[in-house]
């Protein structure tokens, strides 16, 4: 067993079978919609079909008269009784203004999908029938649907309360040194880089069942969530029910990807309605609602400039970034604002940088977290680097080699104030390009081009911030208990929704307590049973919950050893715990099982009175600053010159997430993230017209990649200790980050063979063909 260093242990580091698999793979997962509570009603929202409008009147009488309808609630019923709707204890203290949330629109609507009324009925079908009978009289007003429109002089205001469409504008002061470097640089490249809007799209849409008991005063909620404890606090603030009387439970969750990290607006309205009516209400979001009104993501642009010397060494950068928050972003302003600029230098030595970060509001669905919410820094940087490489006349790999932060440079302070250590971007760049045979590919590409075919290769290199020390998100507690029969239960405040936490945390406990993996069960997702935790998101579970779990397991082992020492009449330091047995080192026959230890503790006279009798311990871990992981994505593509279709050839990732708890789980996270990035670059796009009308509200038009379109990812692991007790680093988001520029750059590389350039994503066949035609190719 290795507590330290890099090597794999008995369980930690092994690709053990997932505990989740038997139920999930046989279709026996339990999601919110599988839960039924007594006398449950069903809800449907009436949503605005205009992006901006004044409400003249709302007529609910016909809807209310329909058989099976119990209530039709409007803002007049709910807005006055609602507490704060900000879904996190941290957001409340955010330096950024929060959008003026309200349960239901009363005076005006601000995006298509904005809820105006909630119908509560005996079935969802009846609720939908009634929703059609709610008549809202709107007076349309001008809307702003894009960043450019929101920034224009005299633009209509999304939130008159703000007095501006730009609630956050954070410019660095003008820097003469940066200007001087640009003025004297051998090469200057400038480019507007746009990251189009695409969404998390979990397979299971949002869902909630809320019941309020008027007698006990208890609010009981089932929720599809990434953070039941924060949800509980949110519901408490919202409804005024004291936090100890709110219980939030979750079952399996069919994906969240950030969308369910903060409790959404609509779930809160349903909870408030349940409290108001004193009846249990179920709301299962349908796919159209999910696409229209859950959360949207990405949607950034930046004017990016690099100054380089004659060899391609970066001298300075400018990064003028605007993030689109939509109308009612979820979780503060939904995005990450200045953090994008601070991460822009990424794994490169950029000595000087000027940046500005703005957040704008538009009459569109609110922004929410999505796997790597800050990822635009990587898109922007990696895309401009390829532009720069072509301008300087060197290979894209070469420009990265020249500028990458080497091991010797660390700890490395970026010009934006980030401190990187224990990262290996140079190594992963070399590994990934070796695995894909970068040089060999260049030869293949040239030969194919001689036949008229367009092949390309692209690189995405990045450093991923994980386990951020932000408020309650930087802390986690874990409770481990040796049960009377000798099995072990772990109680966590995490909220797995695809991360295999039941497996990985059981591995950690098996390793550090010394019990078989099979005997460990992990309990999450019930606020009455588990310690408070910030939820699963932000690549925080492995580092923060993992180290807390490790500590709790070690503490239980100490207690077990103490009891066993009495039972075996041996010195504690002579004992070792393995396979569920405590034995005297060197004399394996002198041993007791953990079950015997538990029995002794739980019976009169089993052990001496001065021995602690509680075989339970809590570990708490507070992250020591950001844990940085890193990876390099490289992929090859072929572009069809006639149809503009892009086919991905090989896809390689070399990544360093420190010591792996379970390599299979790490690889699954990488593969899944890549699927989302490939989707983003090539297929997924949530489109609004200029008036803010959504055009892609079904899967007929919002195109997710399928198993056919997603490449099999070849993964190389570089392992550098994470600098915390267990040596791990977070890594859950990176797959969705590095993949975007890797695919984009590969297509751009192919097109560059014929002098064609693409500027914007997604790279639809049409856009590729237009680029080819513009270049006369």
């Amino acid at each position, binding site marked *: 067993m290795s507590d330290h260093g890099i090597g794999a242990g008995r369980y930690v580091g092994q690709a053990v079978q997932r505990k989740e698999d038997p139920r999930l793979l046989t279709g026996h997962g339990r999601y919110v919609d599988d839960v039924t509570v007594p006398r449950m009603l069903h809800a449907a929202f009436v949503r605005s079909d205009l992006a901006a409008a004044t409400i003249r009147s709302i007529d609910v009488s016909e809807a209310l008269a329909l058989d099976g309808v119990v209530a039709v609630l409007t803002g007049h019923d709910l807005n006055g009784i609602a507490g704060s709707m900000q879904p996190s204890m941290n957001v409340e203290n955010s330096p950024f203004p929060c959008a003026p949330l309200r349960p239901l629109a009363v005076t005006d609507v601000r995006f298509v999908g904005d809820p105006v009324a909630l119908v509560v009925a005996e079935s969802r079908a009846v609720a939908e029938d009634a929703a059609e009978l709610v008549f809202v009289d709107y007076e349309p007003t001008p809307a702003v649907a894009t960043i450019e429109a929101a920034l224009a002089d005299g633009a209509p205001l999304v939130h008159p309360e703000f007095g501006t469409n730009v609630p956050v504008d954070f410019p660095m002061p003008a820097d003469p040194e940066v200007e001087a470097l640009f003025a004297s640089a051998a090469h200057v490249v400038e480019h507007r880089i746009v990251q189009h809007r695409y969404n998390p799209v979990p397979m299971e849409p949002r869902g909630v069942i809320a019941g309020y008991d008027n007698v006990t005063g208890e609010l009981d909620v089932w929720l599809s969530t990434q953070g039941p404890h924060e949800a509980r606090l949110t519901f408490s603030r919202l409804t005024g029910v004291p936090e100890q009387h709110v219980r939030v439970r979750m079952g399996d969750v069919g994906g969240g990807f950030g969308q369910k990290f903060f409790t959404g607006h609509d779930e809160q309205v349903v909870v408030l309605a349940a409290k108001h009516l004193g009846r249990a209400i179920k709301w299962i979001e*349908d*796919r159209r609602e999910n696409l229209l009104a859950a959360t949207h993501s990405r949607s950034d642009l930046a004017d990016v400039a690099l100054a380089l010397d004659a060899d391609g060494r970066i001298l300075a950068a400018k990064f003028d970034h605007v993030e689109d928050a939509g109308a009612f972003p979820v979780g503060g302003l939904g995005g990450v604002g200045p953090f994008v600029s601070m991460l822009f230098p990424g794994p490169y030595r950029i000595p000087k940088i000027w940046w500005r970060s703005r957040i704008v509001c538009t009459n569109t669905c609110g922004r929410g977290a999505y796997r790597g919410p800050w990822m635009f820094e990587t898109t922007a940087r990696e895309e401009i680097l390829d532009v720069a490489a072509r301008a300087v006349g060197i290979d894209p790999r070469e420009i990265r080699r020249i500028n990458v932060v080497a091991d010797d440079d660390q700890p490395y302070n970026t010009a934006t104030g980030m401190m990187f250590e224990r990262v290996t971007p140079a190594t992963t760049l070399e590994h990934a390009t070796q695995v894909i045979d970068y040089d060999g590919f260049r030869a293949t590409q040239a030969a194919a081009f001689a036949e008229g075919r367009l092949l390309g290769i692209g690189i995405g290199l990045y450093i991923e911030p994980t386990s951020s020390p932000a408020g309650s998100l930087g802390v986690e507690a874990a409770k481990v208990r040796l049960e009377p029969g000798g099995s072990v239960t772990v109680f966590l405040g995490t909220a797995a929704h695809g991360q295999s936490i039941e497996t990985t945390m059981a591995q950690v406990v098996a390793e550090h307590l010394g019990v078989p993996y099979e005997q460990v069960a992990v309990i999450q997702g019930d606020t009455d049973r588990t310690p408070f935790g910030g939820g699963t998101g932000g690549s925080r579970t492995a580092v923060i919950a993992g180290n807390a779990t490790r500590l709790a397991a070690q503490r239980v082992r100490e207690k077990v050893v103490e009891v066993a020492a009495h039972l075996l009449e041996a010195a504690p330091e002579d004992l070792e715990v393995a396979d569920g047995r405590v034995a005297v080192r060197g004399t394996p026959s002198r041993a007791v099982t953990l079950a015997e230890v538990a029995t002794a503790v739980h019976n009169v006279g089993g052990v001496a009175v001065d021995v602690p009798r509680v075989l339970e311990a809590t570990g708490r871990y507070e992250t020591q600053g950001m844990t940085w992981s890193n990876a390099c994505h490289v992929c090859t593509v072929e572009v069809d010159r*006639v149809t503009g279709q892009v086919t991905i050839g090989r896809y390689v990732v070399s990544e360093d997430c420190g010591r792996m708890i379970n390599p299979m789980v790490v690889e699954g996270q990488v593969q899944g993230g890549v699927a989302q990035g490939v989707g983003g670059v090539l*297929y997924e796009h949530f489109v609004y017209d200029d008036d803010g009308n959504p055009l892609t509200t079904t899967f007929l038009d919002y195109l997710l990649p399928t198993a056919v379109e997603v490449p099999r990812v070849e993964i190389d692991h570089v392992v550098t200790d994470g600098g915390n007790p267990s040596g791990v680093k977070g890594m859950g988001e990176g797959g969705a980050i590095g993949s975007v520029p890797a695919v984009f750059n590969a297509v751009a590389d192919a097109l560059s063979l014929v002098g064609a350039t693409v500027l914007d994503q997604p790279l639809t*066949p049409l856009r590729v063909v237009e680029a080819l035609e513009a270049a006369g190719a």
Partner: protein
Amino acid sequence: MKAAPFDHHAPESVADAAALLAEHGDEAKVLAGGQSLLPMLAMRLTRFEHLVDVSRVPELHGITTDGDLRIGASTPQAVAEHDPVVADAVPLVARAIPHIGHFQIRNRGTVGGSIAHADPASELPAVALALDAVLEVAGATGTREIAATDFFEGTWSTALADDEILTGVRFPVWTGRQGAAVREVARRSGDFAIAGVAAAVELDAADRVARVAVGLFGVASTPVRASATEAALTGASVAEATAALADAALAAADGFDAVDDLHATGAYRRRVTTHLVQTALTAAIQEASGVRA
């Protein structure tokens, strides 16, 4: 996404189905595999008080050859796809069906439903049009036949009256040496085509093009027959046809009002159509003349 309430009728004969349609008029709609109708109902893009489910009417099932290949309207697409009689008699039909959606959709979706639905991006309407298929129709007052050329009137609109049922489709069987190919561009595998071509070629004993059929889908508001392309190749030797292909394919792209939508422009559709016509016909000619591609 719950449909508005409706009554579901499951008649056991065409006569009963036709009577139900006559009785309920425009409040009734035929339901077959439901792969197009149910999503539209669920999204409340359309609504009917009565659905007349013809998917289990025995007379509407079955595949026969009797001069023509006849496929009963309620025959699931997957059944026609895997039936050796279809592949042998009218290879173009067998090759078109795998391009329809995903296998789950073809298990439910019917041949007749696809044709009656008349989505311009659908494969089977274009095949029916190109091959001069005949559509058999029944109503409360009797039966009639409609030539495919007269059937497709617009997007989702056909010559069927509200109270008529499509009972079957007859495809002429070509007996000479033939080749058939379907080529399409779709955003993802299984998607409706942005542009597609179904082409068949028959050679006579002298190795001349006796018949050629080219149907386009996904490009205009109806399926399109590339008549100019067909005319340019009919009667040509294999060598002549091959030499004339590029121009003939260009002619195909000029023969329709191309649609613009979210996924492609009309100009894109023309560009791709030219290419697809050329590759589909090349493959069909090679197959007919015994060349292995």
